[in-house]
């Protein structure tokens, strides 16, 4: 029963997120709206972490698994990218590495800059 209620709470928030995402004019996906909703619920104490802990840990620990069908679906789209497969893969690899480096560098730089004068980070 405990787990059932946890599932219902999380799915209920996702349902609310879907509703809100349909109503707001900018294209923010339901899953991101749900994430913000759940965060606000925790922040304002409407929900406590133990209300959803087991369900949350199950989803977080197995997150990669839920992407398998999305990955398999590339098979369906393969015909459209077949002709440009090499530049396509190069762009996906190269820009991801570049974005990673630029983001990590920025975060490290800005936090060092903000912590200047402090003895330890």
């Amino acid at each position, binding site marked *: 029963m405990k787990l059932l209620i946890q599932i219902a709470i999380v799915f209920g928030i996702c349902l609310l997120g879907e509703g809100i995402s349909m109503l707001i004019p900018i294209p923010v996906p339901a899953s991101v709206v749900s994430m913000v909703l759940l965060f606000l619920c925790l922040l304002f104490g409407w929900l406590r972490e133990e209300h959803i802990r087991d369900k*949350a840990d199950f989803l977080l620990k197995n997150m990669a698994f839920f*992407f398998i069908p999305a990955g398999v679906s590339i098979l369906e789209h393969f015909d459209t990218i077949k002709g440009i497969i090499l530049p396509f893969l190069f762009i996906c690899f190269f820009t991801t590495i570049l974005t990673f480096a630029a983001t990590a560098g920025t975060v490290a730089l800005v936090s060092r800059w903000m912590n200047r004068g402090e003895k330890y980070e």
Partner: protein
Amino acid sequence: MNEFLQEIYSSPFFAICLSVLAYAVGYWLNRKTGLPLLNPLLIAIILVVLVIQILHIPMESYNQGGDIISMFLAPATAVLAVSIYRQLDILKKNIVPVVAGAVVGSLVSMGSVTLLCRLFRLEEKITASLLPKSVTTPIAMGISEQHGGIVSVTVAAVVVTGIVGAMLAPALIKLFRVKNPVAAGVAIGTASHALGTSKAIEIGEIEGAMSGIAIGAAGLCTVIFAMFAG
């Protein structure tokens, strides 16, 4: 016999069992070899694709169960809020660097994609399809559509980007000597959305939480920048 098999293949239980089994093999191989490049998700996707191709299973049959697995993506993204909430103090201390990282990262992603597409002389609609490749699928699809992209190319690019991010994240952290876990997390989330985040969670709690924030922050930045991209 053939009809019987087709019935079996189109049961949702088939796709779910096949996916779990493939993931278990990937997980086991990854543990056994200790090679981050042998990413469990990547192995699982390849195994499932092989089985589907060899047994001539139609995509519609696999999707009977595949859609049920995909349904969990939304709640899995939502509960990232729990891991963010667990790191609330760190987030409060680092809110400016986190936002700065997402802004710069999104700009670099969109800029480098545009430049490379020009360099390879790809069609305008391919450029529009690849432009939002670093953000989570629903956002990317929306942006691609608005700019006249091909949605299926966008979906493929988003997934490949995510796998690249998840696969390379540990190596990139070493290569660029990223010592700050906040920087590593934001970088993973900005470069490779929720799929990369699944790896960030495994690397550490701070990394996972910051990667989760970056999904939202980079997604929002990309939506805003795409409005100005024409």
